[in-house]
């Protein structure tokens, strides 16, 4: 199983007659943790949807787990951008995880060995993300961090070989961002799952990353974090002078992006001034 988890070559996606991005080439291998970075509207979610085959490529080609895009979705765990459940959502976390396992199947589940096995896998997945304490409660009554863990459990329950996580850290406070990022890395390493995680702020995940896909200027570059997040690469990508600064504790700060800074923030609770 040495095939790439995801490979795109010179890919382009058009929406409403407009190219969202083009000439995107990337290669993510099994067990690698990749971040998908870039400003709002740069096409990060579009990439995830293209890998799932929900949006067609208008040029170039791609494979996922050695198959055409959209044909390996059963082997992919997907966590869409969102999505918090409102307080009225009357469904338990454990039910949501179970839907991730066999929710696409027709007919009524009958009690028996298959059902016990399903139950075991749901419990195992919930255990893995450390959500056993609250999985039996209605999802709408849980905090953002608790909901996010259960959604990751849902994405994991079919033992996927690729995890596509669209901004899983976005709705979380800083301590939760760090613990969820550590959780994702542990899964990535222990289970040999390839992970593509869309993020707004690279710093909470920077220590864990193998690859970075950086979207800007209607295209993207892919490479090792310290190769991509440099003044030189980003200036070329944005066609504007960009400066990447490194703080004494190893955080990266990008200065001079045309839009709101895509990479920013403070890993520590004190003095952080997040816009959201």
């Amino acid at each position, binding site marked *: 199983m040495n095939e790439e988890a995801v490979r795109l070559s010179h890919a382009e996606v058009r929406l409403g007659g407009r190219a969202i991005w083009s000439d995107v080439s990337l290669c993510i291998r099994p067990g690698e943790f990749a971040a998908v970075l870039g400003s709002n509207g740069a096409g990060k979610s579009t990439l995830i949807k293209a890998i*799932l085959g*929900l949006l067609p490529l208008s040029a170039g080609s791609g494979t996922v787990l050695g198959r055409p895009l959209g044909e390996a*979705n*059963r082997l*992919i765990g*997907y*966590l*869409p951008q*969102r*999505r918090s459940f409102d307080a009225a*959502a*009357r*469904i*338990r976390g454990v*039910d*949501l995880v179970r*839907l*991730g396992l*066999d*929710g*696409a*199947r*027709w*007919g*009524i*589940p009958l009690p028996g060995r298959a059902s016990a096995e399903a139950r075991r896998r749901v419990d195992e997945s919930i255990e893995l993300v450390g959500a056993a304490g609250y999985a039996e*409660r*209605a999802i709408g009554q849980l905090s953002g961090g608790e909901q996010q863990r259960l959604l990751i459990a*849902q*994405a994991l329950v079919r033992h996927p070989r690729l995890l596509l996580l669209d901004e899983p850290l976005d709705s979380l406070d800083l301590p939760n961002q760090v613990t969820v990022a550590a959780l994702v890395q542990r899964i990535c390493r222990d289970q040999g799952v390839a992970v593509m995680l869309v993020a707004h702020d690279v710093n909470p995940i920077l220590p864990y990353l193998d690859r970075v896909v950086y979207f800007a200027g209607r295209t993207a570059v892919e490479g090792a974090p310290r190769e991509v997040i440099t003044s030189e690469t980003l200036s070329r990508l944005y066609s504007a002078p960009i400066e990447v600064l490194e703080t004494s504790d190893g955080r990266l700060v990008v200065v001079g992006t045309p839009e709101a800074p895509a990479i920013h923030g403070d890993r520590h609770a004190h003095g952080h001034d997040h816009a959201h």
Partner: protein
Amino acid sequence: MHIDELFQFHFMTNALIAGTLVAVMASAIGWFMVVRQQTFAGHTLSLVAFPGAAAAALAGAPVFVGYFAACAAGALALSAVSSGDGHARSLGHESAAIGSVQAFALGLGFLFVSLYHGLLNGLDSLLFGTFLGITDDQVLVLLGIAVLALGTLAAIARPLLFASVDADVARASGVPVAALSAGFLLLLGLAVAATSQITGALLVFALLVTPAATARLITSRPGLSLALSVAIGLVVTWVGLAIAYFSIYPVGFYVTSLAFGLYVLARVLR
């Protein structure tokens, strides 16, 4: 006044069988409607049932044919209006469109009623329900529809629940979200048409929404909640029919009041 009196008359037996079929169908399909937050669509279908029945009476066709034809047409219209493949289901636009359909349907209904003067006596039962005069044929039709609707619902229940609570992930897992949405509206149309015949067009919600809303107050386990919804639907229908038999007021009133009473009880005790 004896309970066994209820079963002495053929019309009453028919009413109880029809009521049972309707209660199971309405509360099961209604449960999904509540989960999908489509109560407004359900309400519209119930108002579409009214001109359907009035038009059938005007045309000299059996009233129940009018109910079913109108609700099926209404369901197709609604799924055409609300298709946008659910991607960015703009609820504001959708409810405005559904509201326009609803107002037009109600207007048509009153037109048909005034065109057909003979129906005026029956207006009460069209709007508020009756259990009198349910024929053997109607019971058979209801049985066929209940078997069809509940069988279909059982087959699609899991993907439908998935698509209802988590459309994006369901779509990525290969669930045909848009097709399920259209199919469910058709099922809802069938349930509304069947329920209209017992509770009347205006009180369909007593069986479609209230049992589901009550069950969801009591538990957040989906299977249990669905079963509880059906149980509540059955109890309020049976008791409602029994009381209506001994009284002069329409059955819809009793079913509604009982269902509402249970709902309030569940809220208070929660």
